């Protein structure tokens, strides 16, 4: 079989690799019969007899994306046609067009790790060969400065230590997305600054994310910086709300998110760092800092991070799908919410009783006398969910039954009723009003298997005047 005259073979090897040593006679034969260039990663004298080029800075290995040695590549001019990874006689014969290669060798043998992917070298190589892709200002640290303290002193921390965003760490983070570093993700309030993928990656490093979380973070940043979600108002309000992030899809399990025991609490890296990154973007890129544009009277601990996954298998279907995401898609839903409060009901065994119990708790949200102006998210625990699902109640049925129990006579709501000045205007006295606007109660499922509890997350000014929940599918 003849190869076109413009084709040549490229092999990348290292002496330390026994497979590379084993194929030395093959390389000599190909060198004699074909246009073959051999790059050696470690020993310039290896392999003997083929005049190898020493890839001492690993530039060739890096740019050819060599993960394993030996790798044999067939090039047509500058274009790679095909490559064989490790030793395979059949593949090497096909690539080279030379039959009967080294009949005394085994037919296949796996190679060894390329020095260009050595964990001790890879960050430095990425910085050297890809650092030019980044545009952020480099801030030099003095010898005597403590890295962590510097981050506090410059006002870049949310109050907890952050990981210093070195170029190497940011480049590693960017491996988590196929998007270019200079891509603009969103315009971040309150300063209305365009945030790039690179700046999101910087924040993700600081928050402690792994690269595989980055597509989720980018999607949440996009979602909160919409006119619908209105992060400007969520930030500026005196109420104690922040972005509450609910994640759906198989990707939540792939990145190790927690939907189970203590799902809304501490202890899970993905849950905590995704939510934290989003707030660091608002703080550092958007300029939204407490006491400045953030005017919250109390705030809540969830403003550091409030992010959890929904149970992948519960009978009410996913929150994202109920809001239009494609079935099975990785997706996020952002909701402007306060901290969670617990609904305790350990005795209800019928759906009617439990619905009445939950409705009574929901009625008190923010004020038992205010209706329609605030949304809420109900996070059913598995044991509560089972009370409903065992009786055949689905999402629509449960929400309808709750709505039915949350129709409140205006006489109980108006200003002055029950001796409380707060309330709805007097004109509502003649009407019966629902606690929540249509679609204003969101339903999610999370929590550990034991415990007849659910959680309510109160919202903020809703609809066009305030914030609307936003659901987005995650892109890699």
């Amino acid at each position, binding site marked *: 079989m003849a190869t076109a005259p413009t084709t040549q073979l490229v092999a990348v090897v290292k002496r330390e690799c026994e497979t590379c040593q084993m194929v030395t006679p093959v390389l000599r034969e190909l060198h004699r019969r074909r246009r073959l260039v051999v790059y050696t990663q470690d020993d310039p004298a290896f392999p003997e007899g083929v005049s190898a080029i020493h890839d001492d800075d690993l530039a060739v290995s890096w740019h050819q994306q060599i993960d394993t040695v030996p790798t044999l590549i067939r090039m047509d001019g500058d274009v790679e046609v095909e490559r064989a990874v490790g030793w395979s006689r059949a593949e090497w014969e096909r690539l080279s067009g030379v039959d009967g290669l080294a009949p005394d060798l085994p037919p296949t043998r796996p190679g060894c790790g390329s020095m260009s992917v050595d964990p001790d070298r890879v960050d430095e190589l990425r910085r050297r060969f890809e650092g030019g892709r*980044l545009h*952020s*200002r*480099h*801030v*030099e*640290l003095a010898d005597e400065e403590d*890295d962590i303290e*510097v*981050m506090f002193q410059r006002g*870049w921390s949310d109050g907890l230590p952050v990981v*210093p*965003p*070195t*170029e190497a760490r*940011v480049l590693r983070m960017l491996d988590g997305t196929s998007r270019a570093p200079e891509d603009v993700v969103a315009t*971040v*309030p309150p*300063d209305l*600054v*365009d*945030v790039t993928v690179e*700046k999101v990656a*910087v*924040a993700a490093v*600081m928050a402690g994310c792994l690269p595989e979380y980055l597509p989720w973070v980018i999607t949440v940043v996009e979602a909160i910086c919409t*006119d619908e979600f*209105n992060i*400007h*108002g969520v930030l*500026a*309000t005196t109420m104690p709300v922040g972005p509450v992030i609910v994640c759906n899809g198989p990707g939540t399990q792939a990145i190790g998110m927690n939907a189970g025991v203590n799902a809304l609490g501490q202890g899970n890296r993905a849950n905590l760092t995704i939510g934290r990154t989003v707030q*660091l973007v608002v703080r*550092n*890129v*958007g*300029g939204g800092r407490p006491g400045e544009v953030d005017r919250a009277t109390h705030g809540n601990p969830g403003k550091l991070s409030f992010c959890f996954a929904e149970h992948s298998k519960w009978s009410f279907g996913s929150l994202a799908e109920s809001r239009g995401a494609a079935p099975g898609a990785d997706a996020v839903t952002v909701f402007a919410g306060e901290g969670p409060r617990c609904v305790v009901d350990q005795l209800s065994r019928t759906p009617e009783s439990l619905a009445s119990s939950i409705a009574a708790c929901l009625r008190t949200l923010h004020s038992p006398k205010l209706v329609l102006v605030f949304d809420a998210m109900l996070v059913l625990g598995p044991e509560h969910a089972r009370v409903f699902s065992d009786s055949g109640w689905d999402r629509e049925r449960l929400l309808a039954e709750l709505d039915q129990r949350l129709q409140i006579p205006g006489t109980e709501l108006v200003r002055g009723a029950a001796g409380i000045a707060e309330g709805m205007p007097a004109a509502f006295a003649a009407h019966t009003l629902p606690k929540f606007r249509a679609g204003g109660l969101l339903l999610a499922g999370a929590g550990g298997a034991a415990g007849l509890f659910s959680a309510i997350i109160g919202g903020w*000014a809703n609809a*066009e*005047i*305030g*914030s609307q929940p936003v659901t987005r599918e995650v892109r890699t």
Partner: protein
Amino acid sequence: MTRFVLDPTGERRVTQRLRLERPSTIGGKRVGLLDISKPRGDVFLDRLESRLSEAGARVQRFRKPTFTKPAPVDLRHEIATQCDVIIEALAD
């Protein structure tokens, strides 16, 4: 060894704008009153309007669609071109 971190901020260059000089008198000035749509902001602004009118100001009223979002650019332009002074009512 020299150590660097990447700047996590938006790295924007802030444009400094000087405020207009405070007018020595309100008489004859075009005064805008911006209601941000918070409840009872109108009560405060109604009172201000009557006081300012007594002082000889020409008062115009403006209203943001919602207090939770910045004023739309068209509204800001309208105020900037039609008023010498603007008063924004903030709270409930």
